[in-house]
């Protein structure tokens, strides 16, 4: 439900991403990516779908992406949020 503390996940390798999360009163998602020009829209969609799936409605997320595929984005967001002690609402797979 809530991001209760700062956390991060991922690495700076190519095809990976870093996800930084921290508590905030609104939901903010900031995306930096080596393929921002081509994929910012898809990355944002994916991030939002993950947040919805995990029932996160507020917090600040910063993504620093190096061309990760969707599965890696899913994994790193989930890892960061679990580390931030989010209580999981569901475990359904993102479509």
């Amino acid at each position, binding site marked *: 439900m809530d991001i209760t503390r700062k956390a991060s996940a991922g690495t700076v390798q190519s095809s990976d991403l870093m996800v930084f999360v921290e508590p905030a009163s609104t939901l903010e998602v900031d995306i930096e990516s080596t393929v921002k020009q081509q994929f910012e829209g898809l990355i944002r969609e994916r991030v939002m779908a993950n947040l919805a799936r995990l029932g996160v409605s507020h917090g600040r997320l910063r993504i620093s992406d190096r061309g990760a595929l969707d599965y890696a984005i899913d994994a790193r967001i989930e*890892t960061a949020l*679990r580390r931030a002690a989010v209580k999981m609402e569901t475990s359904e797979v993102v479509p």
Partner: protein
Amino acid sequence: MESELKLRRSLLYVPGNMPSMLQNVSIFDADAVQLDLEDAVPLAEKDAARILVRKFLDGYTKRRQEVFVRINGLDTSYAEDDLREILPARPDGIRLPKADTPEVVEHLDTLLTEFEESHNVPLGHFKIIPSIETAYAVLHVFDVARASDRIVALAFGAEDYTASMEIQRTKGGEELFTARNHVLWAAKASGVQAIDSIFADVDDVEGLRRETELVKKLGFIGKSLVNPRQIEIVHDIFRPQQDEIDYALEVMEAISRARELGTGVISLRGRMVDAPVVKRAARMLKTAVSMGLVAEDAVDLSDEMIHGVL
């Protein structure tokens, strides 16, 4: 029975926390991959790696090879979390490190059975490859081999074994000779495959070649690998020779005639062709077919032909 004939010449380790390697899995020609949550992953990233592997496997639906996951040792606090996370993604099996005792394997077997029962997975779906990698394990390997029906192969782990012996691993491998034979005896006596250890020096092609030739001679049917560049070399060494193929084809032809006549035993070139000879020939031909050395339709390698009436 089926798994005894399964090709497992190359079991490639892929680090569990590296997307750049994981997403190449589908292009590797290895007979199996072992997605690694253990040694390749630092303690602080255990959670991240298991989630990454899970998400990767969820999407890797058209699998090109067998997929094993090397979980952390059952004596650690990570192993059960590993299983909880990755079993829903249906790997073919688990590579179990530090399989020192039958009890460790039985414990894993129980966990797998519980998961299968509660998740509607066919019982026995998840296979186990125990790692024999300590002096203690070598002494108990026969009991380990018989600890679960899920075991399809025993994998020797020379790096940890030499550490447990407080000796250096050498490229000649003299120090490993007896331990390798123990693993082989246990595997053969239990009807499972034997997989040799990794060869860590990726740039030493000749060293890998020599070691693979040695272990093939001893009776191993495959090796664990640390780099995809090693696949082709290992496959090349396990490539059947033409005279072996010719003889195996004769064996299959003889047994096919025998099956028609309704008898299980027949002689070829004055030697008796019985079940072990047929199995050996079939394994050889499966390898040959997979490498394009024998046409797929040139020989009947159905279980029925190999084992007789099922």
